């Protein structure tokens, strides 16, 4: 039935290609959905709760709450970009808290030494992770599950069932405080995010990490220092988790081995949601940050309505599902 059409009228010589208009992302581009969601939520709750929601107190509160979660999320993000998982992040946070407060409790060290110790212990676990994955070539899920378990073991060992809270100097607690309306933990988290954003989006190192995450074999053949990058990714992840632990210790003023585990899954949720709402399908810092705050704005609003705590679980799940379904699922094109 098909009749072979003898087509003419095209420019001869080079085979023509339909004109590809490199489209600028428009307002309707799904990459903006995250911003819209955040804006809509804030507006909605502000309209409904004019007295308490759009207030600086509330902003301060939300920023303060999310700082550690944000740091955990970006700590998870780096290895994910490079194609690896770091499940030890939560335990590293715990260990770092314990080490920091332990420094005060037992050695009465100055604040800076305790902080450095907390961050260093995170970097160390990260180094071990990197070594296990890059050199021993262990699957990252297994390796970090194992090192995480061991880090937690060490934290439990030292605390032996108690909470460290002695001799914590006020200077250290100040890290958990705020300057004007801006909580210091948030400033720290923001700086971490900014640096990381620059590295991932604007430097060759970031490019290489994404390339490794895309195809480890090809990355190797293209001459990238894959071992170095892997180790670097895990060290960065561990260091940020360690810093998150220090900040959490300053916020709480104590070192508690049971704080930490709760940060893992929300962190992953933020990273995945981040890839769903911004630069679709690509794990990225901006998306992760937006995701953290979308969820926080939602939870804060709901709690101001006095809804019970389980609403949070339900709604977080629903938001995640709907966002991802819209932007990266079946309906995304």
């Amino acid at each position, binding site marked *: 039935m098909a009749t072979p059409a003898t087509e003419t009228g095209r420019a001869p010589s080079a085979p023509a290609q339909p004109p590809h208009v490199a489209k600028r992302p428009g307002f309707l581009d799904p990459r903006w959905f995250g911003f819209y969601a955040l804006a809509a939520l804030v507006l909605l709750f502000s309209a409904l709760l004019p007295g*308490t929601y759009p*207030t600086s*107190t*509330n902003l*301060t*509160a939300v920023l*303060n*709450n999310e700082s550690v*979660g944000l740091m955990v999320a970006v700590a998870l993000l780096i290895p994910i970009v490079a194609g690896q998982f770091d499940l030890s992040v939560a335990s590293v946070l715990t260990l770092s808290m314990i080490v920091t407060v332990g420094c005060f409790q037992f050695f009465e060290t100055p604040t800076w030494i305790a902080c450095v110790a907390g961050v260093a212990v995170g970097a160390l676990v990260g180094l071990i992770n990197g070594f296990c994955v890059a050199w021993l070539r262990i699957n990252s899920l297994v390796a970090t599950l194992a090192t995480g378990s061991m880090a937690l073991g060490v934290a*439990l060992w030292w*605390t*032996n*069932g*108690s*909470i460290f*809270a*002695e001799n914590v100097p006020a200077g250290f607690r100040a890290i*958990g*405080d*705020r300057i004007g309306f801006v*909580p210091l933990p948030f400033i720290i988290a923001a700086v971490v995010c900014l640096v990381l954003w620059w590295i991932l989006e604007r430097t060759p190192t970031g490019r290489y990490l994404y390339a490794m995450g895309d195809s480890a074999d090809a990355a190797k053949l293209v001459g990238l220092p894959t071992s170095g990058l892997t180790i670097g990714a895990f060290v960065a992840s561990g260091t940020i988790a360690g810093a998150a632990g220090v900040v959490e210790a300053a*916020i*709480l*003023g*104590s070192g*508690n*081995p*049971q*704080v*930490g585990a*709760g*940060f893992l899954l*929300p962190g992953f949720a933020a990273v995945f949601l981040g890839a769903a709402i911004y630069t679709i399908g690509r794990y990225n810092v901006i998306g992760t940050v937006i995701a953290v705050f979308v969820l926080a704005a939602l*939870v*804060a609003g709901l*709690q*101001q309505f*006095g809804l*019970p*705590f389980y609403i*949070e679980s339900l709604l977080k799940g629903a938001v995640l599902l709907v966002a991802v379904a819209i932007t990266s699922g079946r309906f995304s094109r």
Partner: protein
Amino acid sequence: GGSEPEARGGGDGATVVVDAKARVEAAKVDVKAKAPADGPEAQAGKSVVLIPCSIASEGCAAPAKGAEEAAKAIGWKTTMIDGKDTAATQNAAVRQALALKPDAIITFAINPGEIQGAVAEARRSGIKVVASSAPPSELVDFSDLPTEATWALGGSLLADFAIAEHDGDVQALVLHDTGFDVLAARHRAFVDRLKQCSGCEIAEQQTFTFADLATSVPRMVQQMAQRHPQFNTVYIDYDYAVPAVLQGLRSVGVRDKTVLGSEGTSNAIASIRKGEQTATTALALPWIGWANIDALNRIFAGEDPRPAADVVSVKLIDRSVAEKMDGMWDGGADFRAEYRKLWGVEG
């Protein structure tokens, strides 16, 4: 429970405050831990497995460590197995304990109703089971230690403290963990006592769970604090959760509120000394352990274990008390010696 003047329901504001102040003062003085006046001799050569709800949290672990100490004193062999926070792992710990063929198992802050399978199995194999810090239960040989009245006292004293502090004008935020049955008595007593005070009000109640305490409680507190700017008191079931409450308050710039917890962990006492937490009602945690060993000794001797529980009492600790303390309240002077004397194991 300890002795206290009965609260007169619906009394006029002034009397409620006066009564409350009286009870508070009474509970602040040095409650002295002591052993029961009489009891059976030490039953020799027993072995006991101790299962705290989680060794990682002091409220569970400290009584277990007290029991370990006491068992050593009475000459028994002990093994401690970690309950690791959840009913599933606590159930597993009890089953693991069976393999050691002990004479008894003591669980700490584990509701036997939640691990019925393992408990039944243990009793079937002739092992005595004592559930410390659990509501009265048919499932085990003995469980009401501390007694329900003692738990309730911990709550009502905190309410008294708040009433006294604010002269009968308490605006309270109440956070309750529904996951532990024993806490219900404490929480109820706090709420009931406040209700007796006509000028007092519970601005809002919320529930939370132990598992996501670190992340959800600060948020919850922030939002409650913003919604009820008039509040002056926060009650949360146990000291362990107080740092999360303080975190929430601090982040919305709220200070100088009455923050109440209960249990009397060393962390809480340090925090009270620093003026962050306001007060706690302390159970002498190691003493609970000793009392449990005493109860068990009575069971082995075929006697009623209840007298062992009657001695355990509650002390109210605020800043003035905390400043005189070092570490947690362990029941004061020499209850250990008294128990030794009771058991006839001097030395």
